[in-house]
């Protein structure tokens, strides 16, 4: 998921941020700026000037708006978005764990701190089919590497883990990321 154009953020779905503040809908000029940059920045020595020309505004305003979106978290970061597969990380395991709800925050924080965990979330169970409430994505160069990392998570969770599984992706069916319509 990290290479989606729009990545998940710490705020839960539902239009409110992590601390309950209402979120501003993206409108007008900021929206046009998102549409103009969501596929990437111009590869030219003065990319913000190129965008400014395209959008009919001053380069200083383009930079100021991008800075504001970075500060508010609308933009997570600006830079290179690598393709996992091209970097040799071909195995992608979604490790899932059943832990006590009262312990999950402490355990989730600890699992999220492991250097090889790229995403870590508390999600609802779907009983009886799905008993797992802690999701940790693990990438590796092969399944053996992922298995070894999952074993580290299991060791960290110890007796707090009641059941777990690892779901490998065996086929990418679609990968586009969200694109706002221009």
């Amino acid at each position, binding site marked *: *998921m990290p290479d989606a154009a729009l990545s998940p953020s710490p705020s839960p779905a539902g239009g409110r941020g992590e601390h309950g503040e209402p979120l501003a809908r993206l409108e007008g000029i900021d929206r046009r700026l998102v549409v103009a940059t969501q596929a990437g920045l111009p590869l030219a020595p003065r990319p913000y000037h190129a965008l400014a020309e395209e959008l009919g505004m001053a380069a200083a305003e383009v930079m100021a708006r991008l800075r504001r979106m970075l500060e508010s978290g609308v933009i997570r970061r*600006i830079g*290179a978005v*690598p393709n996992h597969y091209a970097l040799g990380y071909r195995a992608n395991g979604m490790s899932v764990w059943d832990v006590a709800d009262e312990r999950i925050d402490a355990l989730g924080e600890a699992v999220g701190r492991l250097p090889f965990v*790229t*995403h*870590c979330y508390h999600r609802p169970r779907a009983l009886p089919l799905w008993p797992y409430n802690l999701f940790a994505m693990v990438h590796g160069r092969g399944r053996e590497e992922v298995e070894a990392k999952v074993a580290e998570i299991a060791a960290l969770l110890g007796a707090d883990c009641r059941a777990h599984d690892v779901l490998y992706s065996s086929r990418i069916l679609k990968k586009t990321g969200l694109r706002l319509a221009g």
Partner: protein
Amino acid sequence: MDEADRAILNGLQGGFPLCDEPYREAAARIGLTEAELLERLRRLLEAGVLTRFGPMYQVERMGGAFVLAALAVPEADYERVAEAVNALAEVAHNYRREHALNMWFVLATETPEGIPAAIARIERATGLEVFAFPKLKEYFVEMKLHA
């Protein structure tokens, strides 16, 4: 990939400057010239090593929503269901995974109300129940992969 490519991948995943000549400044940080950096970025993008170079937006901070969901698809019907699910613009990615729940996809919508609407459309199109796994809490999200 050589040392300079690795420096780009490991050093420029974030923090690209907001200034008049950001490529010049970013290049200097990793010991390249502006022209070298632009040339290498072009090549890494063309080769698919980079999927993109630019801002990574967070849909929820823009008022939208992002939800992981899954289906238990009968094997004989897998291709038809994959096609039906992928046809929705709201499906940002979709993976086959080995489990009774064997199709896992992410719905990304511009408004929170878009999620139940997309789920209803998928259920109608596939005849299957969609299991939604919205995040209740995020403990960590970060690219930590090294080239």
